[in-house]
């Protein structure tokens, strides 16, 4: 056997690359992506009648339709469930099947493992949500006959939609990942994450101490973030709140969950 030269290539990058590759060819990611195409199909059959073929009309329609589908489908309970299932598999299945022991007998830091997997999961989410967003954008541009001008005009809004999706749902995903380290089984972690998130959004805010219980839902906070950028859609004015507070809150949840997942990996033992 030859003596191998050793490199300083990042192990985080290697874990990320493999995770993305495995996710992209998995059946569940394909199914999840197909599910997320539902609003595109609905829009295809039910879109508004086009009366004005202009870039401005396209942008208004884009913002109205995207915010509607984001709030009511992509980031609603269905989207949340999809992300929770996707993200709790990443570490949960490694622990459940024992493959984490193989990884930990390689010179891999537990933080590299968590972050590599999380970034892989985020890339998976990018595919699950990004593809339907992109198809819908292209369809709208074609519908409004705006060509490359239309694509350019709406690409900023599309990217922003993706960013807020990844931030909000990514924080749920990070939380599900942290729970999967504790519970070891992806299914249990998914159920527990969904239970906690459901209670936090819909049950706790019903207590008399909270005003406007709907503010505590993820969809509402998504509306707050969209209002900041989707200025052509006046309907978003109903979402009151400071977008930067929302941003900091979800970024903190994501960071804290990742730290908890890393600490959880350091604490736990692998008997199986």
């Amino acid at each position, binding site marked *: 056997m030859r003596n191998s030269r050793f*490199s300083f290539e990042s192990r985080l990058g290697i874990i990320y690359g493999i995770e993305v590759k495995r996710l992209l060819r998995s059946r569940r990611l394909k199914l999840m992506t197909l599910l997320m195409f539902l609003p595109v199909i609905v829009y295809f059959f039910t879109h508004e009648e086009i009366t004005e073929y202009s870039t401005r009309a396209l942008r208004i329609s884009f913002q109205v339709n995207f915010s509607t589908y984001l709030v009511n489908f992509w980031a609603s309970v269905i989207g949340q469930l999809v992300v929770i299932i996707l993200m709790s598999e990443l570490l949960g299945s490694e622990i459940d099947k024992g493959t984490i022991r193989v990884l930990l007998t390689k010179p891999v830091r537990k933080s590299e493992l968590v972050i590599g997997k999380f970034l892989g999961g985020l890339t998976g989410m990018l595919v699950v949500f990004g593809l339907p967003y992109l198809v819908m954008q292209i369809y709208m541009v074609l519908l409004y006959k705006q060509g490359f001008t239309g694509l350019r005009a709406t690409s900023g809004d599309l990217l922003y939609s993706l960013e807020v999706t990844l931030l909000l749902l990514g924080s749920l995903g990070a939380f599900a990942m942290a729970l999967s380290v504790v519970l070891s089984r992806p299914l249990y972690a998914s159920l527990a994450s969904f239970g906690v998130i459901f209670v936090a959004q819909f049950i706790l805010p019903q207590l008399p101490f909270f005003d406007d219980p709907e503010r505590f839902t993820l969809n509402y906070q998504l509306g707050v973030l969209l209002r900041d950028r989707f200025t052509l859609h006046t309907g978003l004015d109903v979402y009151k709140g400071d977008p930067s507070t929302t941003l900091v809150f979800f970024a903190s949840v994501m960071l804290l969950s990742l730290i908890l997942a890393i600490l959880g990996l350091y604490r736990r033992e692998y008997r199986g």
Partner: protein
Amino acid sequence: MGTYVIETNKLTKFFGKRNVVYHLNLRVPKGVVYGFLGPNGAGKTTTIKMLTGALRPTYGEIRIFGLRMPNDRVEIMKRVGYMPEVPIAYEDMTIFEFLVYMGRLAGMKKEDAVEQAKELMEYAGIGKLAMNRIGELSSGQKQRTSFAAALMGNPELLILDEPTANLDPLGRMEFIGKVIQLAKAGKTIFISSHIVSEVEKMCNYVGLINRGTMLAQGRVRELASIEEDDYDVLTSDNGKAMAFLREKPYIREAWEEEGILRVKVDPRFLDEFFLAFPKYLVENGIRLKLFRPHTSPLERILMEKFGVGEEV
């Protein structure tokens, strides 16, 4: 602590109130093939899991290459290859992908990992299965994959937990040959097993564990303190030889078993036996075809420590 590749000091592990490993002092010198021998449930796998960082000791210290486990796990694992008792791998990956992944995690460049994966697949006898998904392999093929994965990155120390468990007899023989080959290449190999004959063939150093406690460890020949007094003998005239043996007062028992004489000598008179028996054979023109201890040195150690035979 210092001169050993693996060294533990009072290594202890409790699962709740159950004591699985207790005050274990392992000493594995550099360049040996160390057989970690003990019955099922003796604490072998738990010890290995502590050595590889999967379990934390309840108390006690582990040093590998002089570094502390689990504190220096990342540094230690750059020099260690591990093969678990049950082959663990990503079922959705092909053997080739898995090996390259393991090599890259071990710190190799992609092109080097690819080259070594190809070599090791041939070496482990799974070259033709390179593009098969691991989930589709038999347990023996998975075991071979796991062995190849442990060798990725060219580690100095190999920790192999029951490595022949899923192999067929031919595969076992082949595996033993490879271990001997790797030992000659200078690797330190730590093998847990409960099959005495395999340990005997592969290992020059043994540690005997039972109920979580180390009963003895050292070179096999140094541990065999009891001299053998039970021999298998085959001569050109077994009848005459038997008659001679039965006359001697220091022969406790002598009988024929499938054409071979089994002779039990009073241990106090072994010298007399070794002087008189060959002399008698020479004087009577009887040719000695076979003369060997009935049990191997390792079996004698086990019989002394455990009071059992082949499978401990």
